[in-house]
């Protein structure tokens, strides 16, 4: 099982890196999703997979029944999933906004000239002053 998960994690990582390297912004975001899941799978795997009792302390005991599973990797992975979800939502909104404003999702077309920054900020100031 460990070997299988390691291979799956590696494959997801490879696919994710390939996608991140594409020019299309949406594909890059999908790449982030894949890498994020690859890391979660690997984290799970590195926390050791064991067939064991649930880590619950029964009434009257002070320790869970040995051998018990390690709950920490699950808690950590859950945190990582939640954080990853939030960041991903932002990345998707940003991709959408960029498409709306710039009319493209091709990263090659996003080569701004520094001159534009000054021009835009000037325009923005004028707008605010009005």
């Amino acid at each position, binding site marked *: 099982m460990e070997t299988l998960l390691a291979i799956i994690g590696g494959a997801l990582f490879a696919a994710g890196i390939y996608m991140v390297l594409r020019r299309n*912004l949406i594909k890059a975001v999908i790449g982030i999703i894949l890498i994020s899941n690859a890391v979660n799978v690997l984290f799970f795997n590195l926390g050791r997979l064991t067939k064991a009792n649930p880590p619950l302390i029964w009434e009257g005991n002070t320790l869970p029944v040995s051998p018990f599973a390690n709950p920490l990797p699950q808690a950590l992975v859950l*945190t990582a999933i939640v954080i990853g979800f*939030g*960041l991903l939502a932002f990345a998707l909104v940003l991709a959408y906004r*960029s498409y709306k*404003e710039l009319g493209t999702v091709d990263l090659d077309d996003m080569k701004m000239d520094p001159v534009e*920054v000054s021009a835009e900020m000037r325009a923005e100031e004028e707008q605010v002053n009005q």
Partner: protein
Amino acid sequence: MNLLLILPIAIPLTAATIGLLFRKSPMVQRASGVIGMAALLVSVIYLSWQTYTDGIQVIQLGDWAAPFGITLVMDLLSAAMLIITAIMGLVVSIYSLYDIDRVKEQYHYYPLLHILLIGINGSFLTGDLFNLYVWFEVMLISSFILLALGNRKTQLQGAVKYVIINLVSSLVFLFGVAMVYGMTGTLNMADLAVKIAEVENTGLVTAVSMIFIVSFGIKAAIFPLFFWLPASYHTPPVAVSAIFGGLLTKVGVYALIRVFTLIFTHDIGYTHTILLWVSGFTMVCGVLGAAAQMEFRKVLSFHIVSQIGYMIMGLAFNTKLGIMGAIFYIIHNILAKSNLFLISGIAQRLTGTFELKQLGGLYRQYPWLAVLFLISAFALAGFPPLSGFWAKLSLVKAGLQIEQYVITGVAILVGLLTLFSMVKIWAYAFWMPMEEENKSEQFGKMKLMGAGGLNLLVTPVIILAAIIIIVGLFAEPFLSFCMLAAEQLLNPEIYIESVLGES
């Protein structure tokens, strides 16, 4: 046990919450923004004093004993970083009162600034590797929004690059955390420092340390991972650029210093040699990139990269003097660099542009602005008696002490090239006359100080310039503080004992 240690996180959290609750009232937002920063500064100065007099301060959150719970630790390095962060937060929030328009305020500019500081302060305080990842994400998400706030086209372009590369960096970091957990079964940094020495497969430990170099290296913008920084830092409002340019990369440097003095010290000959090479290339690439730029903030962005090289060099020397130099360099650089960003914003307000070729005549019209620029620029280039001189001097001394002549030579040469870029800005923006066609309406009419002037923009710059001069003229107490911090870092036993208790 020091319960007050949660203040650097709790105060910005409170200020952010107040700001969010009163989103309709700009006055409350501004007040909570600035007062929150002032309260934060007071609290970290008090905590730093305690750390200075009583030794490393520790709190086990929820009273779970280390290494099982989350630990917050404050040693002298954290103290120095927290104070400088709070100073920056305060001056930037004052600057923002003028620089940030009403629309951005309505979209929660001040609460976001405070959330950014929660993330930064948390990263400096935490003693747990996974917790560090969480603080990084808090910092990242608010920095994403701050960078894109305003939705200008160039901002979005910069934000896209920043967001993607930083997400990759966080995931690489998380993977590194997973590897460390798999090897040792613990995430508490002090516990890790003990247990990682017991790992038999040292090759694997070295591999994991490389994962950390890549991840923190992206955040710190070291060679060859820095390309996202000059592509994005010149796009947001000036106040945001200033706090990003000052603080965010230094969080990466802090993390590198922390893990490479505490955890990954098993094979210093290998890991620190890599850091040394990287630092040399970072310095040279950054400064050469800056020489090619003709936009005020873009020149400064490339200089951030180049200055990061100095800090990494100090870490790579791994001697007391080297690490002391690196810490002092971080403090000096945050002050000087952010101040230059703030000055670029004033120049833009006066002339309507960041382009060096269109700027001009600032010295004739605004001599005091020129003086303020010179203070920060000479500090950055390392002129005595300003702060940069002592920072560079300690690093050069550290290099000569361990006979690393080549890298020391590179560092001095890069200092010279830094001066070249600063002189370029000086010549184009301040000295050369402004062409009539480029002249904006307000140029010459708008005053720096006084009624109808840019008081709120100039005051923070004056404060920072004053601190730069004070640090330069009275360097001794600051240097000896950094020396104590370096001693603590090079004797991790003190840190480990404070966190885990007597063992």
